[in-house]
């Protein structure tokens, strides 16, 4: 029995973190143009506040919220709006996007700094976070201020910062913790204050000793914040797994972390919260890991939101000969791309390029052989095999009755399936055909 905290089941994929884990965060070059989709988050899309021909500055609001669960968008460069139209995005949808051509000056708007942010009230903090357009930066992109405003009957007693980064290849959160530990801790303290919570935790997988060390020294004089080394296992960084590992609490079926009194935020989100509250800086850039055997010079880069993936890849030396697959996000939960002309958005944690020898085809899958491997690894304790069969045969209602909607598409089942069945796609298909 190891002493490190963990959850039940899960898988041990090859991590390949060494490709980029030693690369410090470099600033990406000023892009010539950016494409900012109005919908980078879960919830109502933002409404464009500019028209073609408008001059905008860095940090200026170009799209405003249209509902409670929504998030504004900002320009990450200064320049001129040249188009507002539908463009492809990394999640595979065509989304209305605002295209801005750089004027090369990179002029910022005036940010409202708060040197004495410790005195701000929880409501002020939430307003600052909302206006900065901060969303969950682990990938799901749920508006952060909404997560920080739970209904009254849900008592929150714990904030967990997610530094697990269990996705293979990705090292963005790792580098962030190693290089900016103080800022992350300040972000956590702000989040704790906005929720009125006394207890803070930071969970980091054990394969990032330098990050654990850096975070430990950053919280040396904080009594309420605890660092948790976690077992290296996928999906350790899924919020329900993280709560299970650190607090030993199990989120009920169809429930949310707030049902067990916990709020989980990504490391990147904590940093963005700090920058928004302290410096008034909106979410206009994020750390992206550009990695994989298909990329010439893997790197961790601070990329402006809206920069095209092709631009970023070019700055990393381009693709190697025989690169076959480009994925936005990690290899487990990311989205394969068909064009590189899609923008980096708030939820883009990585750009992964796979060379041919790494790539596994799932084109020729067979019928389920009922080996039960997927049942052994499903972190939610579901029966993926029967769900996939229901989806394959069109019995979507039966899939729903077997807790289809508790599946968060981590891909562990697809990873272990000896029949190479596209399990996650089956789940998505079934979810698209029935109402939750």
């Amino acid at each position, binding site marked *: 029995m190891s002493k490190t905290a963990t959850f039940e089941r899960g898988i041990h994929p090859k991590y390949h973190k060494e490709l980029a884990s030693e690369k410090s965060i470099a600033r990406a070059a000023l892009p010539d143009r950016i494409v900012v989709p109005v919908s980078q988050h879960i919830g109502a899309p933002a409404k464009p506040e500019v028209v073609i021909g408008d001059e905008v500055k860095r940090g200026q609001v170009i799209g405003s919220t249209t509902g409670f669960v929504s998030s504004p968008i900002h320009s990450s460069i200064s320049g001129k709006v040249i188009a507002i139209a539908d463009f*492809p995005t990394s999640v*595979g*949808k*065509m989304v209305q996007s605002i295209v801005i051509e750089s004027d090369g000056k990179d002029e910022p708007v005036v940010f409202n700094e708060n040197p004495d942010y410790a005195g701000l009230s929880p409501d002020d903090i939430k307003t600052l976070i909302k206006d900065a357009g901060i969303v969950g930066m682990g990938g799901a992109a749920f508006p952060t201020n909404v997560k920080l405003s739970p209904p009254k009957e849900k008592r929150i007693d714990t904030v967990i910062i997610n530094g697990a980064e269990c996705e293979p290849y990705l090292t963005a959160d790792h580098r962030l913790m190693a290089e900016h530990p103080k800022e992350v801790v300040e972000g956590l303290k702000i989040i704790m204050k906005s929720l009125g919570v006394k207890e803070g935790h930071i969970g980091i997988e054990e394969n990032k000793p330098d990050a654990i060390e850096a975070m430990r020294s950053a919280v040396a004089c904080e009594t309420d914040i605890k660092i948790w080394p976690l077992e290296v296992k996928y999906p350790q960084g899924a919020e329900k797994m993280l709560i299970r590992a650190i607090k030993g609490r199990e989120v009920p079926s169809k429930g949310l972390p707030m049902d067990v009194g916990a709020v989980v935020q990504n490391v990147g989100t904590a940093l963005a919260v700090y920058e928004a509250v302290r410096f008034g800086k909106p979410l206009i850039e994020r750390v992206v890991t550009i990695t994989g055997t298909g990329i010439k010079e893997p790197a961790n880069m601070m990329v402006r939101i809206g920069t095209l993936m092709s631009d970023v890849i070019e700055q990393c030396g381009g693709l190697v000969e025989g690169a076959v697959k480009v994925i936005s996000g990690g290899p487990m939960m990311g989205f*394969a791309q*068909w*064009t590189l002309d899609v923008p980096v958005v708030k939820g883009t944690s990585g750009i992964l390029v796979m060379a041919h020898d790494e790539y596994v*085809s*799932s*084109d020729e899958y067979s019928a389920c052989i009922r080996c039960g491997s997927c049942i052994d690894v499903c972190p939610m304790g579901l029966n993926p095999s029967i769900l996939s069969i229901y*989806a*394959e045969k069109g019995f979507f209602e039966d899939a729903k009755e077997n807790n289809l909607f508790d599946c968060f598409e981590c891909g562990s089942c697809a990873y272990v399936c000896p029949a190479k069945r*596209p399990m996650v*796609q*089956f789940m*998505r*298909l079934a979810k*698209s*055909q029935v109402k939750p």
Partner: protein
Amino acid sequence: MIDLNNRVKILVFIVTAGLLLFCSSALYAGVGGGVEVRETVDLIELVEFTAVFLLGISAVFGMGLAFAAKKFAVKEDPRVDQVSDVLAHAHCGACGFPGCRQYAEQVVLNPDVKPTLCTPGGEATAEAVARITGKVMEQTEPRIARVFCQGGCTKSVRRFKYEGVKDCKAAILASGGDKGCIYGCLGYGSCERACPFGAISMND
């Protein structure tokens, strides 16, 4: 309809017989006013009495039922049933009537309704309907819908290599499908599998 009538008749018969058996036994046993209670029961006599009583009553009710069946019978052309039996029973409405039964009635009774309207049934059904109704079946070219753009799998470009569930509903979830043309048929044959009458087929 005949089945149902039979069932009702049997039910009525059983209920009546039961009631009568009970009443006649009671009568015979002398339960009720004015008759002395017997001390012994003659079984043979009881059975005879009951049988006669039953036969008499059932004859009366039987005649009543038979009369009612004749008097209130719904007249229906037997050809309607015959036509109904040969239709495809997809209830698709392609003939222009609400369902197969309505088409069967109309094609028998209305001389203007053509026997060739059952599209899922095809030529065999049309012939059978024409034979039953005595109408002339006009030879018609089968009308087949085709994707007019001709953008089949051989001509339309694919934006990327799609791997995964061979189903259009699933393929559309991956960046809107791999076809270069966003309006074009994806070609994974979900529609072909959904149609039980073979109305749709994938060719190229």
